Every structure is written in structure tokens, then in C-alpha cells.
């Protein structure tokens, strides 16, 4: 066979074989139903694992989380719940009152996602290699272990609130449930790591893995923690969209929308000055470092604002990027779905509630080209798989 024919045959064989998704054969139970376990389980489900939600009679708490899809009745109307739970099964079981049924459901499972309510022994009889992956706000030990958690509390303690917002305060908490999502995403790495370790023979037997959502969110601020340790200084909140040591950095109003600016290196600064016709600032010695420019915020900020306000943000991005300046549009939620880059990458798929109402939702942000994950799908109705999975 010729080399070319061989290559063609190889490619044909690869496409014909339709490889299984990456996580096929992994069984996951979610017995907690928090946003964090939901997102962790979603990543498993999107990549082919068999994920079973074991919901209490009233359903998981995520079913009561906004936003809600209009004209759909509870408990199937949470868009957030639908997004988190496509490609999963749902059974209703009062798990604490039915430990034997719970064990049976967990038969052969590699992973149980938990919020600290269960013990490894609750599952291990019929699942000898099970990893009980417990995701809690603060971990299971330490002075905050019994604290009531919330995104606001977590991000405040993580140092992710202090530097946001007006200099005079109050500092601003970012909107939404990002803290839980970051917790679930981080737990996925550790949990799947345990599964892979067992399959590779690097670990064996049942185990518990504890993920602290607070500690997961320290990924944003650990550098600041070390900086604080070394300097002994607390640092100050500088104002909206002002973060040391980088300047200019921010979101600026243009004629047609918002422009995102970052100019960090000396050459980016010079190009930025050229782009905005403010060359007189390009070679000022103090402005050759980001922090030097930040000190002169009061001088530079009004100039930049003035130079961008009547221009097109999209045009500035195109021209700026040609000059190697990291500029980007700042799309509104409405614009996000039609932004050319996101359309080109199928960044949004379609999610359906159990009742079939569809809406757009983000696809997995990473792509495995040979074994792609699912994007979207329908969420299971509360207890939809009872007859199939409960004996």
C-alpha cells in the first residue's frame, strides 16, 4: 500500500470507528445536588460518564435556583438546573431513610458526589473503588468548617471582593454563582485524578476526597496572599476597573459599545498611544512601566476616555490587534450570542428543560478533537428514571 493510501485508510478507520466519549464506563452518583456537585457532575456527563442524580422527594436545591424559564412549572423551570443536568439521569430516593437502595444504586460506581452528608461506608460495599468526592464551602476541618456558606461569603474571605469597586467602598461582590462553579470545576480535576489513578494502578480502594470551595477560589488570589506575606502591606482598592500593577486596563465607553483595554509591556503602551493619537505620552520615561503609568492615572485616564469615546470599539479592536495590543470588545449578554468568535466556535449549544423548552447555554469550554464532549441536551424530569433504576 502507498503511503498516501495508508494515511487515507487510517483516517477512514478513525472516523468510521466513532470513538467513545472520553469518560465512558465511569459511573457517578450525585447525592448532594448543589451547584458545585452539579457542575462537577456535568463535566463527567458531558464526556460520556453515566451520571445519576439521587434527588430527595422535593428535588435538588438547584431546581429552585434562578433564572427560571417562563411558562414552565416547577420543579422543571430552573434554567440553571437544566444547564447543569443535561445528559444525566434522575431518580427520587429519600437516601437517608433507604440506605440499602442507595447502596444498590451505587453498585460499581467510581464516584459519588456529596456535600458532606454521607460516609464512604454508605457506598463502599458494592463499589469497592469508589471515590466519595465531598465538595463543601470550607472543607471538613478548621474554624470555618461549620460556617454557612454563600458565594458572597466565600469570595469575601478569598480576597476576591476587597479590590473590586469604588475606592471609597463598599467593595463589590461579583454577581452570580461563580464560586460554586469554580469549586465544582476544581473538584472535577481532583476527582477524575483519583479515578485515573485507580485505573492506572496508582491507587486502590474506597476513598474520600475533600474539596473546599473557598480553597478552590483562592486560585484567583493566592498570588496576592503571597504578596501580602512578603510585603506586609494590605494594598488598597484603587477604584472601578483599576488593578495594580497594570495600567491602562479597563472598560471604556465607545460610540458603539464598550472597549476592553490592557496595555502591559512598553511596546504595547507605545502602540496604544499611536492607535489613540496620543503619541506625546508614548516615550515619557515614567510611562515605560505599567506601575509608573498607574501612578499617573489622573493624567492619563481622561485622555484615554476622550480619545476612544467617539470611535468604534470593534474598529479599535481590529486595528489595535493588528498592532499587537490586547484589546477586546466587551459584549453585553445579548451581544454575546452573536459575537463572531463565539458563533464560529459553537460556544453556545441548546439546552432543553425536561418539558422541552429550549434556550442557549455555553458549551464545554474545552474540546477534545477525537473524543468531543456533548454540548447541550435535555435535563431529566424529577424521578424520570425511577422505574428503570430503582428496584
Amino acid at each position, binding site marked *: 500500500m502507498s503511503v498516501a493510501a495508508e494515511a487515507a485508510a487510517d483516517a477512514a478507520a478513525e472516523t468510521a470507528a466513532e470513538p*467513545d466519549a*472520553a469518560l465512558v*464506563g465511569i459511573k457517578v452518583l450525585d447525592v448532594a445536588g448543589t451547584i458545585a456537585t452539579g457542575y462537577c457532575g456535568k463535566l463527567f456527563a458531558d*464526556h460520556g460518564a453515566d451520571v445519576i442524580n439521587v434527588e430527595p422527594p422535593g428535588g435538588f436545591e438547584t431546581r429552585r435556583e434562578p*433564572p427560571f*424559564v417562563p411558562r414552565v412549572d416547577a420543579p422543571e423551570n430552573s434554567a440553571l438546573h437544566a444547564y447543569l443536568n443535561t445528559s444525566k439521569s434522575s431518580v427520587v430516593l429519600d437516601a437517608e431513610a433507604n440506605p440499602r437502595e442507595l447502596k444498590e444504586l451505587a453498585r460499581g460506581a467510581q464516584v459519588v458526589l456529596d456535600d458532606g452528608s454521607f460516609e464512604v461506608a454508605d457506598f463502599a460495599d458494592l463499589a469497592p473503588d469508589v471515590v466519595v468526592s465531598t465538595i463543601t464551602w470550607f*472543607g471538613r476541618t478548621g*474554624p*470555618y468548617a461549620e*460556617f*454557612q456558606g*454563600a458565594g*458572597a461569603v466565600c469570595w*469575601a474571605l*478569598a*480576597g476576591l*471582593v476587597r479590590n*473590586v469597586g469604588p475606592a471609597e467602598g463598599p467593595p463589590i461582590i461579583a*454577581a*452570580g*454563582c461563580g464560586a460554586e*462553579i469554580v469549586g465544582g*470545576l476544581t473538584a472535577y480535576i*481532583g476527582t477524575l*485524578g483519583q479515578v*485515573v*489513578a485507580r485505573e492506572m494502578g496508582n491507587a486502590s480502594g474506597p476513598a474520600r*476526597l475533600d474539596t473546599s470551595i473557598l480553597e478552590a477560589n*483562592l486560585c*484567583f488570589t*493566592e*498570588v496576592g*496572599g*503571597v*504578596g501580602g*506575606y512578603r510585603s506586609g502591606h494590605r494594598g488598597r482598592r484603587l477604584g*472601578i*476597573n483599576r488593578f495594580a500593577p497594570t495600567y491602562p*486596563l*479597563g472598560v471604556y*465607553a465607545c460610540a458603539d459599545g*464598550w472597549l476592553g483595554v490592557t496595555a*502591559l*509591556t512598553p511596546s504595547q503602551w507605545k502602540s496604544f498611544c499611536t492607535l489613540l493619537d496620543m503619541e506625546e505620552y508614548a516615550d515619557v520615561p515614567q510611562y515605560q512601566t505599567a506601575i509608573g503609568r498607574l501612578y499617573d492615572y489622573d493624567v492619563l485616564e481622561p485622555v484615554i476616555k476622550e480619545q476612544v469615546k467617539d470611535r468604534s470599539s470593534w474598529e479599535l479592536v481590529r486595528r489595535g490587534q493588528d498592532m*499587537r495590543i*490586547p484589546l*477586546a*470588545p466587551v459584549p*453585553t*449578554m445579548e451581544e454575546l*450570542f452573536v459575537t*463572531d468568535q*463565539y458563533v464560529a*466556535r459553537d*460556544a453556545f449549544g441548546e439546552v432543553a428543560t425536561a418539558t422541552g423548552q429550549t434556550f442557549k*447555554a455555553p458549551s464545554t*469550554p*474545552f*474540546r*477534545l478533537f477525537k473524543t468531543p464532549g456533548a454540548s447541550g441536551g435535555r435535563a431529566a424530569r424529577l424521578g424520570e428514571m425511577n422505574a428503570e433504576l430503582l428496584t
Partner: protein
Amino acid sequence: MSRPGLLDGVRVVDLSMGWAGPLAARHLADMGADVIKVEGCVRFDWWRGWEATQEWINEGGAEKSSAFNMVNRNKRDVTLDLSTERGSELLKGLVAISDVVVENYSSAVLTKLGLHYEVLKEANPEIIMISMPAFGTDGPWQGYRAYGSTVEQASGLPHLSGNADDPPTMVHVALGDAVGGITGGAALMTALRNRHRTGRGQYLDLSQSQGLFPVGIQGILTQSATGKPPARLGNRSARFAPRGVYPCVGDDEWIAIEVRSETEWRALKDFADLPDLGPVEERLRRVDEVDLAVAAFTRGQVAEVLMFELQALGIRAGHVASGLELASDPHLSARSFWKLMEREYVGELPHPAAPYRQGDEPFDIDRPAPTLGEHNREVLSQLLQLTDAEIDDLEAEGIIGNKPRLE
């Protein structure tokens, strides 16, 4: 003690720089993978410093960056000048005996060097390779330059936070990087599982800006599921009151409080001696009064003390910590979250634990971040069987080295 051997036998070539890529690889390193960071003496990791001068090099500036030292622990480091044929051959040699390659160059950099996936796949057909540029490896923005801040801007997330009258509000100097890093870790672990099961490697990419969409998921779904943009409420909530950040005793001291139930409200009202402001529907209507009353109380309280007092009553509260306080946080300390390790050029540095643990103690950390080219000799002799003389030649030709050089 040493780090866990969960990923014993997995070798990673980490070509990535800055924050996101190195953080992705750090997760694998923390679980026991042999992560070999590859830099160059001219093209060193820009997180060591992006305003290099000869004076800075002479002072050892490239070894002093906290940020660099934070995301590169548990790794080995070799320098290879990838623009030379010999450097490029040595990299291919490393790839041939590895499982994973991580890179986050701007697009086209590796192609120009002749070291893109199609080439590295020839060195190792079953290699897993991840590219993690800001916007992904295809689409009209594939070549766009970006930092973590650019990624946050382009994700649209600034439209979700802050007060309605303020410009779209960013929440971090580089939000995209940290999320890009953990998203990359998740992608790599997924591909590792597939490779172990099937023996097949593959190419992966991720878009860091898409990585932020789940972080802003409620705002995105509000738009798509209801057809209306989410309201920007500052620190307030459409569901709970009080909910906000309130001033405490001292300079720039604050506490975040979120009251979710009537039971919690009654507990707060009694403890703080607040006026009766009605059930939650009424409190949401009278939220200005609610916030004033709560602030009038908190102003006389010490934030950290009040946090413990309110939490003891079952009320969600957390003091607004600074970086300085993170390093001495009593909870993180009790959990041995920070490990002090001696690092050449900087002395003792606290290193954050992996955020997942088995048992009460975190995974141990074997070693702090490597110095530039610290493991040149070790890696080149042990893994690529180079002789001392060959390594000396590489040094003499400047293909490897231990000091940064200006271009």
C-alpha cells in the same frame, strides 16, 4: 512526606508561560506527574518579568516573581532555545517520552518554530497536546493577543457585576487566567483518562474566554432563557435582604452578609437590635432602610469578630479579607493550607495547597518552583542520555543556560 503518586508515570512537557497554562500543569504536578517546564534563556516565562533590563537580570530578578513561584512548584525546569535546530530536536526528544504537552503561546508561535501538534505527533503519535489561547485555536479572533484581563472583558462578564450606573465592572486583574488554568487541568485529566483506556492521544484546545462563561452562568442564562438582560444590582440581591458589604471598625474594614431566611433575619434583628422591617418582600422594597440599619450596627463591630458571632447564629457572613490576611487566615492556617518552603533568591515563601485533599492534611509539596534551567543537566542526561560533554557544548552555544539574556 512527599506529594501523592496518583499520576506516577505520567510525564508532562510544559511549554506554557504566564498563569493559565502553568496552573493547568500544576494540578498534574501536584498529583505526582513529572512536569518538565521548558523555557528559553531569551524566551523565558514572561511571568518571571515582562520589563527585563540587564540590571534586573544581574540582580536575579527572573527568580523573584511571587506569581511565577506560585504556579510552578513541583516542576522541573530546562531551558532550550527552540529557535535552533538542536533545541528543537531536544524538545522533540522530550515529547517522544512524554504523555502530555501543554502550551499557551499566541497562535502561530509554535507553527513558526515548526513545533506545532502535527510535528510533535510525529515524535509521539499518542501525545496529548493542549493549546489554550485566549479565544481558542480557530475563529476570527484566533490570533488575538490577550491577557487574563482581556479574557474577562471579552467574556462579557463585566456587564453582570457592579452598580447599574457604573461602567461594566471587572473583578480581577486577570480573571481569565485562573479559570483558564483550572479549565485546562480539567481538559487534560479528561484526555488522560481517554488515553489510559484506549491508548490514544489527541489534540485539545480551550478558549479561556469561553472558560469564563460558566462563572457568569446565571447572567448568561437570564438573557437566553428569559430574553431579558440580567439587572446589575451592586451588592444587593433580588431575593434576599439584607445582602451586602457593610462597614466595620477600622480603616477599610468590611463584612459581607447575606440573610436567606426569616429565621436568619430574626436572629440578626435580635442580635443587632434592628428595627422591624417586615418579611422579605417588604425588606426588599425597603432595602435602603435595611442597608442603613445594618450598616449602623456593623460600623461599631470588628469585622472578623462579628463574622464568628453571626455565623454562630447561622447567618451567612464573611469579613472582606485582603491578601495580607489570607496568609494568616486562622482557618487556612488550621488546615495547613500554606506550606512555607525555602526558595533560592527569595527565602521562605508560603505555597498554597491543592484545593482537594484526602484526610485532614493537604497533599504535600515536594519542591518550590525551579530556577531557570535548574534541571538542564539532570533532565538531559537522565531522560535524553546526553553526555556531560554534549551538555557542556549546549551551554557554550547558548542553547541551554541558567541566566536570562536580552534579545
